[in-house]
């Protein structure tokens, strides 16, 4: 099998390499890729939308169907992970629980049928497993860093018209903060901040914001996702209406991507049990 695969790959690679000299030279300004559609985008992007970042304009305005169905694909991936992995069965072996005495850092194991501490006890905290490290340094650092990261992600979202950034990057950074919380503390803390139900709802609402903007344009008598018609609603002229609509659409993308990243992490790191994490 390995030899066959090697021969196949070498043969196909040789064919591709033999034909590679038909490709244009690297960095040639007159190559076919940069002479047909993209001059129109570069020349008219600022005039149509008053937004300097052309990538954001092409992403959310000229090719917004692409982006909308891409957000739908991300949502579908979240659902696929959920339906494949999630199970209600408790994964606890033997039914014992681990608790940590916070002032001393001692870990105690309570057997099945033992007396458990109160749910909201300040002295004992439920932990996932015996090896969960007691590490105030990492927990404090992550708790101090997470607000800065979240503000940075909102900056990336809001400043995406003028600098690199936008909905996808902001969503992934925002999801990464929740994943960081789950890694540095444990999965229960993270689930308390953002439960699975919230993640599912946010992802659906995000895609709905995107599709709803397009539907609103359709209802007001224009093409689907043609933002010009929203100008009276957004109290601005047509170009600025496109600019504002790009921001609205990117908020939807941010919510969808962030929620789906967190959701997939919850299911993967606990193998669908969601009782003890990484």
């Amino acid at each position, binding site marked *: 099998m390995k030899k066959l695969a090697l021969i196949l790959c070498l043969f196909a690679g040789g064919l591709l390499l033999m034909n590679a000299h038909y490709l244009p030279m690297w960095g040639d300004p007159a190559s076919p890729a940069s002479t047909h559609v*993209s001059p129109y985008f570069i020349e008219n992007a600022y005039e149509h939308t008053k937004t300097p*970042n052309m990538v954001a304009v092409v*992403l959310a305005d000229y090719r917004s169907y692409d982006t909308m169905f891409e957000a739908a694909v991300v949502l579908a991936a979240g659902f696929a992970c959920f339906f494949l992995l999630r199970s209600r069965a408790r994964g606890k072996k033997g039914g014992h629980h681990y608790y940590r005495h916070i002032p001393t850092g001692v870990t105690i194991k309570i057997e099945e049928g033992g007396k458990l501490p109160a749910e909201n006890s300040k002295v004992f905290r439920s932990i996932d497993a015996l090896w969960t490290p007691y590490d105030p340094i990492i927990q404090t650092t992550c708790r101090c860093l997470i607000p800065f990261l979240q503000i940075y992600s909102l900056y990336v979202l809001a400043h995406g018209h003028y600098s690199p950034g936008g909905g996808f990057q902001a969503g992934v950074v925002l999801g990464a903060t929740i994943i960081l919380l789950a890694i540095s503390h444990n999965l229960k803390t993270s689930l308390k901040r953002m439960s699975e139900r919230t993640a599912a709802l946010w992802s659906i609402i995000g895609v709905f914001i995107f599709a709803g903007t397009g539907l609103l344009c359709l209802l007001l008598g224009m093409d689907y996702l043609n933002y010009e018609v929203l100008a009276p609603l957004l109290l601005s002229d047509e170009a600025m209406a496109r600019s504002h609509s790009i921001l609205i659409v990117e908020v939807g993308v941010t919510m969808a991507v962030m929620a789906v990243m967190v959701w997939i992490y919850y299911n*993967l790191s606990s193998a669908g049990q969601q009782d003890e994490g990484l």
Partner: protein
Amino acid sequence: MDAIPYFIGKYNYWGCIFLFFLGMYAMISKTNLIKKIIGLNIFQTSIILFFISASFKHDATLPILMEEHKGAIDPVMYLNPLPHVLMLTAIVVAVATLGVALTLALKVYRIYGTLEEDEINHAIQSH
């Protein structure tokens, strides 16, 4: 045809083609499922590199409009934004498919207790 500029001018494409077939070979020949997924990842990034290579122009700047160019815009001055957009969406779809692929691998491990393809085949046939 002079060979030196030919090689220098297209080395990016050679690298992309090499990574493409490296990923393909890994997907066909490796027996471990996680290794297959790593091969898939390499495959995807090689295609991303190929598209971004196609968008590059010498002496051009980033596709963000500069203040002094707002009157008359020359398309030669800016990089081609279209492949950037396509690949930006492709990367996020790549991580979504990676999540689904890893989920399937985890499910397979839970049922058969192994990630090796031949052992899974053996377990299916002896069932």
